[in-house]
Every structure is written in C-alpha cells, then in structure tokens.
C-alpha cells in the first residue's frame, strides 16, 4: 500500500515530463540530447546557487518572511536565468528548429528540477505507513513547474534567439519573463509572509503557470507571424 502510494506520487511527479516528450514532435526529432544537456546545465546552476546562498545568506531562526533575505534569494535566483541563457545559446545543438529547441531545454530543465528537489523526499517519505497529502501536492507542484519552465524557456528564446520581434511586444516579453523568473520568490512570500497553506500555494502555482503558458504561447505565435 505504501509502495503503491510512492508509485502514484512518482508518476504524478515525473510522468508529465515523459508524456510531454513522447507526445510532442520532440521525440520525432530526437531532441533527447538537448534535454539531457539542459538538465546538466541546471545541475551546474543549482550548485552555483547553493554556494552563493551559503555565502551570502544568514540562517534565520523563525520561519517568517524577511524581505532582505528574500531579495537576496531572488537575486541569486537570477542565476537560474543565466543558466537558461547559457543552455539556450551556448550549447551547440543539432540543427533543430527554434520551436523545438526551447521546448527541449525547458523540459530538461524542469525534469532536473523535479528530480533534484522532489525525488529524495518522495523516496523517504511516501513509502511510510503514515499518509499525508504532501506528496501528491508536491507532484502537482512539479506539474506547474514544468509548465512554468517551458514558458520561461519560450520567453527566453524569444528574448535571445529571435532577432526580429515586433517592437511593441518587447516590453511585454520582458515583463512576463521577469514574472516567471521570480515565481519562486513569489511562492515563498505567499507561504511565509502571508501564511498560506500548501494546497493553496500549489493551486496558485497551477493557475499562474497556465496563465503564463497561455500568454507566452500567444507572444510566441505573435512573434512567429512576421517570419512565417
């Protein structure tokens, strides 16, 4: 029964990534290598972030929301964006269209994120006899994270890879990219500063991820029209 629960939570957390890969044309064009490279880049960025956090951040005793600490964490979070930039632009990809490139990078990024942050707690916790909703909520969070990563990758690719963009849309693109990039800070503020419970936070994440995905889809297709 408990391994059963672990299995359920595992497919909730990691299933969508596999489904995304196989359902979209990514599998036809064999972009697995890109995703793997993106995952490795994420690993590198995570290590750099860890070092920066350890150096600059102070450990607070209470679980409250300290604005300066959170600001610092947000700034360090932008290292994420730098890593994404590196993955998108610097890595040599085979000749795949930009359309698929950002999807592959986003997928690899989200998969690495899920594995690093959610696999260990899942293995340790979900196998016990005691039942909590936490791991299911974590899985939903992983889903939201996947959508957010792909939209971030889309916006990032718009910013750095596409040269001819309609002038009016550029600020919107940057604004959306900024919002998506600071999502972690926003959720941590909600959880600690406003004291929202985990289910509420996950719901918020899912909702915003869908909204952001829709917006970035619209932006992407809008930018694609002139060149099409």
């Amino acid at each position, binding site marked *: *029964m408990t391994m*059963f*629960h672990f*299995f*359920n939570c595992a*497919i*909730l957390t990691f*299933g*969508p990534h596999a*489904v*995304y890969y*196989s*359902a*979209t*044309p990514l599998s036809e064009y064999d972009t697995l290598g890109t995703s793997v490279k993106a995952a490795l880049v994420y690993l590198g960025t995570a290590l750099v972030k860890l070092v920066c956090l350890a150096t600059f951040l102070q450990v607070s005793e209470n679980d409250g929301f300290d604005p300066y600490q959170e600001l610092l964490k947000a700034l360090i979070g932008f290292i994420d964006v730098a890593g994404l930039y590196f993955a998108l632009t610097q890595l040599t990809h085979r000749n795949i269209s930009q359309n698929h490139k950002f999807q592959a990078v986003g997928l690899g990024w989200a998969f690495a994120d899920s594995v690093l942050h959610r696999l260990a707690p899942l293995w340790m916790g979900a196998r*016990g*006899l*005691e*039942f909590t909703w936490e791991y*299911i909520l974590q899985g939903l969070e992983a889903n939201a994270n996947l959508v957010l990563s792909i939209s971030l990758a889309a916006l990032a690719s718009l910013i750095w890879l596409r040269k001819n963009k309609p002038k009016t849309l550029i600020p919107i693109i940057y604004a959306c990219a900024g919002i998506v990039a600071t999502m972690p800070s926003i959720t941590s503020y909600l959880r600690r500063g406003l004291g929202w419970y985990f289910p509420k936070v996950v719901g918020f994440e899912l909702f915003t991820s869908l909204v952001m995905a829709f917006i970035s889809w619209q932006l992407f297709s809008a930018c694609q029209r002139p060149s099409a």
Partner: protein
Amino acid sequence: MAFSKNSGAGHRGLQESMYSVISLVFILVACVELCDAAAAIDVYRLIEYDISGSAFGSRFAALNHHAASLHFPSGADLSRTVLIIPLRELNITFVRVFNSGNGGNKQVHEKEKLKNLLAELERLLIHANLPYPVYFAFENDEIDTVLTDIKKNDAIGQPATATTGGYKLVIPTPEPKKVASPTIANIQGWLSGLKADGDTNQLPTIAIVASYDTFGAAPALSVGSDSNGSGIVALLEIARLFSLLYSNPKTRGKYNLLFGLTSGGPYNYNGTQKWLRSFDQRLRESIDYAICLNSIGSWDNELWIHVSKPPENAYIKQIFEGFSNVAEELDIKVGLKHKKINISNPRVAWEHEQFSRLRVTAATLSEIPVAPELLESTGGLFDSRQFVNETVITRGVKLVAESLARHIYGHQGKNVQIFADGGSLAVNPAYVQSWLDLLSRTPRVAPFLSKNDPFVMALKKELADHTDEVNLQHDILEGMFTFYDSTSAILNIYQVASVTFDLLSLLALGSYLIVLFCFLVITTRGLDDLISLFRRPPSRKVKTA
C-alpha cells in the same frame, strides 16, 4: 476481547479454537490522573505466565492492526482490529462476557469506583487466557485526539479496515520468550544484641520480615505501594530506629534483631521459604518470634494480627497482649485472626506460615482481614501511591516498634513511650514519605528484576546503613510459575489511507496522463496524428499486401 458471534455462556474450548484463528486485540487506557508516526506512545503489556503448564495472561506481543473504539457498529468483524477502550468507559460485564458467567455489578461508593473497577479488571485479566496482545497505556492528548477521531468514524459506520482508511496501530516487538531461571534475591540485616561477658548462650532473636516484590496485570506498572511498599517502608524505619538504640551499648537490648526483605511473595512466599531453609538450625531455634509486615498503608483504625498457632498458645498470647497494650495507647484496634495451616496444601497465604511450617513462632500484621487468594493483594494496577497514607504507616511503625521495644527491654505493661513523638527516637515521617514515593515509582515483579537490579542494591545499602551485617541471598524462583518477557513497548499510531484511495488515485493519474498525451499530440501534431497512432497496424498490412 474477541467478539465471537456465539458469545455468552460459550464453551471455552470452542472459543479457544476460534481464538487461534482470530487475532483480535484490545488496548486499555487507564484513566488514572498521571501523568514518524502520528504518535508514539509508551504502552505496558499484560503479564504472560504459566502455572504448572496452564497458560494465563496475554500470549502475544506484536501488533499490526487497524483501530476501533467501543462504539463499533454491531456486526462488525472485529478480527484484525485493535479496540481502544478508556477505562472510564469500560463496562466490566463486557469483559466478563468471555470469561466466567457471574453477573451483578456492585453498588459502590463513588470515590472507590475506579479502584474497584481496576481491581476487578485485573483479577479477570490475570486469570484469563487471552490469545491476543493486551496493552495498558496512560491517557494523554495524543491518544485522546486519536480516540475521538476513531469514535467519529465508528459512529458513522465506517470502522477502520484495510479497505477504508483510518488509524493503524503497530507495535513491532518480537514474540515473547520465557524468562530463563528467574532469580529471587533475599536481603537480610543483622543487628547484634548485647551479650554479657561470660555468657555462652546464644542470644534470642526477633525477626522482622517483609516481602518486597509485587505481581500485577501489567508488570511494568506494578509498583505495589500498599502491597507491600508500606511493609518495606515500615521495616526500614523500624531498622533505623533500632539501629539508633543499638548503637549505644548502654541501650542495646539483649535480643538480636534480624531484618528480612524477602522476594517471591506472590508465589506462595517461595523466597521466604528458601531464606529460612538456608538458616543454621541453631539460628532458627534461637528465633523467639517473627513479625511479618504485609500491607499496612491504607487502614482506618483497625489492624489484624494473623497467626497459625492457636490463640491459646502462650507465646501467641504474649505477642498479642504486647501489641494490644500499645495499640490501646495509640488508639488503634488490633484483632487476632487464626488460620490453621495445611501442610499438604502448597498454598501459603501469609508469610508467617512459612515460619510456622518450620516451627518458628510468627505472626503477620496486616490491614487485610481475610487471607488473600493466590495472586491477590500482590500490588497490582490499582495499588498506586494515591491510595496509601503515610501517616497511617507512621502509626503502624510506632505500634510495632513500641511493642518490640517493650518486649526487648522488659517493659511489658508499663506505660513507657520509647519512640515518643518529638523526641530523638520519633518516627520520621519524611523518611517514610520519601521511601514510599520511591517505591511507588519502582515496579518490582521478581522475574523481571535482574540479578544486580539497582533497586535491590539500594535496599541492601539502606539496610546496611542500619544494621551490623547485611547478606544478599540469590536463588532461583522454582515451582509452578513460568514467566515470559516483553513487558513494555512503544506503540506507533499511523493514519493510513485505504486501498480504494490508492486505486482511485492511480486511475485518476492514469487518465490525467492519457488526457495530457492526447492534448499535446493534438495541439502540436494535429488531430490526424492522434488518429493515425491507432491506425498504424492496418496501414502496414496494406503496404505489405
């Protein structure tokens, strides 16, 4: 208790064979005001023992079942469940349904209801053979919340089983094993009397004895404050007072004093017998008389002296008169009870009977008017500190000490107060209280005391402080009793989800992933691709044909 359908008068044999198939279990929560998992709670197991091969007590220890309360819906299958019963909700007839058939609740005074309930419950459990684990626990907030939850679930007719969720109680202990060669340790202290120069005869001896071990339904909780904590405390205090008197040769009496703390009391005073048998014949003959102390902690104003020699016997008369005189002065009523001993009957109800069997005059001072049955009044669950009164013990100590002193110093009949209150030889209530408190925190079931148990060593040291010479005698508890270990454990309470929940979530997740797959295929590759996924086999056939 196992809830078989054919309960009631039930043939025990049939029930027992059913028990071997059913593994029902229940936990009692004692509502005495003491003191990874959703909760981890200390629990204490019902004792498991054999008498000459007949099994008694709870025969199992490990537990891994769902929980239910007393409000389970009728007709529920209670095999593979754990019943959690708070003591105040326990109806003793419920427990009795599966044991003998006496009915009838007694009308008792409100205050004593809990004590009597516990006593009766204990008696039932000790003499029953239960093929499932039974544990006792103290009530606390965690168990309270769990229990209210379980009651709510039971009330709406959803008892916890594998198919519906609920609480699961797990005690992961190995199966209980026999305690190999349980030891009993007798402690004796010797105060030498004043031997005049040139006197070659052995001085007479007076023995004061109390048994210090207990037996109860939950051996990890059997502290026996009254039986026989009060006796031990009284003995130690008497030893202290006489050691003060004997320390000065001018006040040393012409009697030796022998103090004995014996073990094996509940088991027909097995330890006392071994202790006496180990004596030199001369020593045994030199014992004038022995006073055994048993349960003198909760009497009102009446004590009993139990003897086995007929009351007309000169020695008995002398002892009784001595006690009565002092008792009158102290405003205590003392009665004499005579119980003949039957040599062929192995049952030894009082400690003095072991002395009498070896032809030593002895008597037992006790508040209990009638000889207790086997394993009765041995300090069980209900015998806790709150039911013992230290002032009463102090009075008892005064009674015994004065009577002994008047006999030793030859002041019988004279109104002399040797241990007067306020003097340097007054009975020390603080001493009595502190030892009583310590005893009320120490479970003392003999088979579970190790050979060098710290408490036994403490008693030995205390007696050594008050006497000239102390000896510790180890022996094996023989006879008809066999004990099994595993007296306490930790209970883990988990909140588990049902199997249906897991299946439903698997179904939901599977459909979610399938829907996601279809959605992505349609949006990125188009609807035709989705349909073509299902049409591939026929198209291949067309190609080859």
